């Protein structure tokens, strides 16, 4: 994440700021960055790795507080886009961060970037809480799991490098495709509802989304 190194902007600032206007619900409103709010700066990936490592090794509360400043506003934003109101999003964000504390030792920077790991924890918390559904997941230690014949020689920098490459590919997408990708991740509605909102035929929504996803994955494959 190199595009906006403004993390210092909120490093020492208060965590609480006056309540801002509710996020827009329109398609464009979900895509516009809002640099006026806390957490608008993009954290450097290596820093997040290091903070989680310190929590895992030393139960380091200062590291936790720093990670909280970086990610709590974003996690809350993610939860509000999924339909949580302000107080429920706050509650689920706090639960997510407690989970981060408890599971810090299971974070493996060779397997996933810190942002990826945080995303999966928040995602699962949301599914449990909002849908009251279980999320079926594989168990990597399952004896019935079919192993990977060609495990990639992953190094700690690789996951973060892939994140950077994804960010670039995302920035290169046409605006309407990038908007659909964001909706696919941040909007708990059926494609048909998204089609209605964007006034596009359902088939167009699906094919544009697929096109965008393939482009993003191709960007990663070219990198390999």
């Amino acid at each position: 994440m190199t595009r906006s190194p403004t993390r210092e902007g909120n490093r020492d600032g208060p965590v609480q700021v006056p309540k801002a206007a509710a996020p827009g619900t329109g398609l464009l409103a979900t895509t516009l960055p809002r640099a006026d709010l806390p957490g608008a700066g993009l954290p450097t990936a290596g820093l997040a790795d290091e903070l989680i490592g310190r929590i895992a090794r030393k139960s380091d509360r200062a590291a936790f507080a720093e990670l909280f400043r970086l990610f709590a506003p974003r996690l809350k934003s993610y939860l509000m886009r999924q339909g949580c109101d302000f107080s429920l999003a706050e509650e689920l964000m706090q639960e997510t961060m407690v989970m981060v504390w408890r599971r810090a030792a299971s974070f493996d920077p060779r397997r996933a970037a810190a942002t990826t790991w945080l995303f999966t924890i928040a995602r699962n918390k949301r599914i449990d809480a909002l849908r009251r559904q279980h999320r079926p997941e594989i168990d990597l230690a399952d004896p019935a799991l079919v192993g990977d014949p060609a495990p990639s020689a992953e190094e700690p920098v690789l996951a973060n490098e892939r994140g950077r490459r994804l960010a670039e590919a995302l920035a290169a997408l046409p605006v309407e495709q990038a908007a659909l990708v964001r909706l696919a991740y941040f909007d708990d509605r059926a494609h048909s509802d998204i089609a209605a909102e964007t006034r596009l035929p359902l088939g167009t929504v699906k094919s544009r989304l697929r096109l965008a996803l393939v482009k993003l994955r191709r960007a990663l494959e070219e990198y390999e």
Partner: protein
Amino acid sequence: MTSGRTSHRPIYRPAHHPAEEQLAGYAAGEMAEAPSLVIATHLALCPACRRQVADYEALGGELLSQLAGEPLGEGSLSQTLARLDATDAGRADTGRSQRARSVPKGTGVAPSRAAADEAFLLPQPLRDYMSQAWADKGSWRKAMPGLRVLKLKAEGAKVWMMELQPSRPIPHHGHTGQELVLVLSGGYHDGPTGYGPGDLHMSGPETIHEPVTDADGPCLCLVMVEGSIRPTSWLGRIVSGFMGF
């Protein structure tokens, strides 16, 4: 591709995979429980799709890091720090439940003759759903000669396990929604196309088909259907009745 009928699962690589947006939907957590169960079970059998889902989770992380933050509640950090006191700084907590490791009795092995030659283990997360079915006093029901079904419970669609004897047609049917069939052991052909262990067979509402199981052994599948099944033959209607649709 050959949907090779080998019984050595470790060397079988699925040739029929979920669509790009299904893998992304699963990674994003925007997919209902029932299709998620099918996709996750496919992932346990398909290393290639696991790598794709990891990419889509990375995309989720990237999108998260690009979000503008929401203002936090008053005392948010201090409240959260106080909650850490209540929790063990549990380094041992990897987030995986213990039950994932143990194999409850009667769930690991496929139901009958499908298991006789292999005694293979059903992958997670399917094992947990089988356990739940037994806990709910579910049982295999004979839908017609050579076809047994066991209902599973997952939100969003109908899901069941299906075991077919060799060389059996699955009665001619269509569906009002999407149908997902994941082969767990054995195999079948739908027209010229073969499906073997780990293969995901998707058919949309417009499809009317009559797959036939392969001759060399029973076939065990995980099946999900959105909406309802529209049997197009008298036999299909009888089977649908038996299966409770």
